[in-house]
């Protein structure tokens, strides 16, 4: 029951954007859970590193590129707050994900260090909350 009134030509871009957003949220949640669990089971650090690189990042790319595509079609007047939240979480998320991917790789190569995986847990936890906020803002469009 998504976005009930919209031109037919936007459907594919919206589908890819929603699919990407759901997948990046699930993959970020998986990375967060793996980062927490890897403090007890260090072999999970390799799973964490792969999850960030092969699941979270590709899903983020799908969400962000499809979001840009639909935004270019929609030509939204003004600068609504819900759209600003979407851009902030999308673009700010890239910075967080790059840092998390680097720290994830460091945690595999330097297994004696515990702080990188702790930092990844914090980053992915913060990003997960941000993704939920963006979902609520972009679906509910408060103030519009």
């Amino acid at each position, binding site marked *: *029951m*998504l976005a009930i009134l919209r031109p037919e030509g936007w459907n594919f871009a*919206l*589908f890819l954007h929603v699919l990407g957003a759901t997948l990046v949220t*699930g993959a970020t949640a*998986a990375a967060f859970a793996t980062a927490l669990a890897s403090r007890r089971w260090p072999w999970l650090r390799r799973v964490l590193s792969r999850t960030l690189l092969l699941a979270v990042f590709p899903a983020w790319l799908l969400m962000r590129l499809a979001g840009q595509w639909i935004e270019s079609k929609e030509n939204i007047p003004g600068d609504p707050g819900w759209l600003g939240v979407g851009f902030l979480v999308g673009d700010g998320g890239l910075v967080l994900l790059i840092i998390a991917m680097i720290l994830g790789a460091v945690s595999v190569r330097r297994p004696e260090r515990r702080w990188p995986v702790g930092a990844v847990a914090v980053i992915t936890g913060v990003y997960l909350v941000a993704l939920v906020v963006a*979902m609520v803002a972009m679906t509910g469009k*408060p103030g519009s």
Partner: protein
Amino acid sequence: MDRYHWLLVFHMAGVFLVLGGAMFAGIFNLAALRRERPSEIVVLFNLTRIAVISVMVGMTLTIVFGLWLVADLDFVEWSDAWVITAVILWFVANALGSNGGRRDRRARELAERLAAEGDQPSPELRASLRDPVSLAMSWGSGLVVIVILVLMIWKPGH
């Protein structure tokens, strides 16, 4: 926000929990296929339980708030083909997911037993993890949910 947008937020929260949960489960499912030690496979199965809860809550939210939206919106009818098809596929996805989950539970129980009995790699566990019927049902359930998402966006016949 008006009522339509609140209903949509809860409906979408369900979509995120289902597809996000499916992604979550898929990641640990693939990781389990790459491991040999039963104790490590048990850890991955235990992490997958979070996804199972996410999918169950999400499926409930999608159907409850989806049907509420149909009842609430003037331009969507109960008789619309895409609404009926989506509800049927919702039941299909549930049936596939729960059957796949039951077979996964048997694999987890085997991994737990092997972990307690010396934690050595086992061909039986490897075969159980790669059971094509189980994999087809679990991944098929996710695909059916994606088809429902397609119906929700395109609304064929509307």
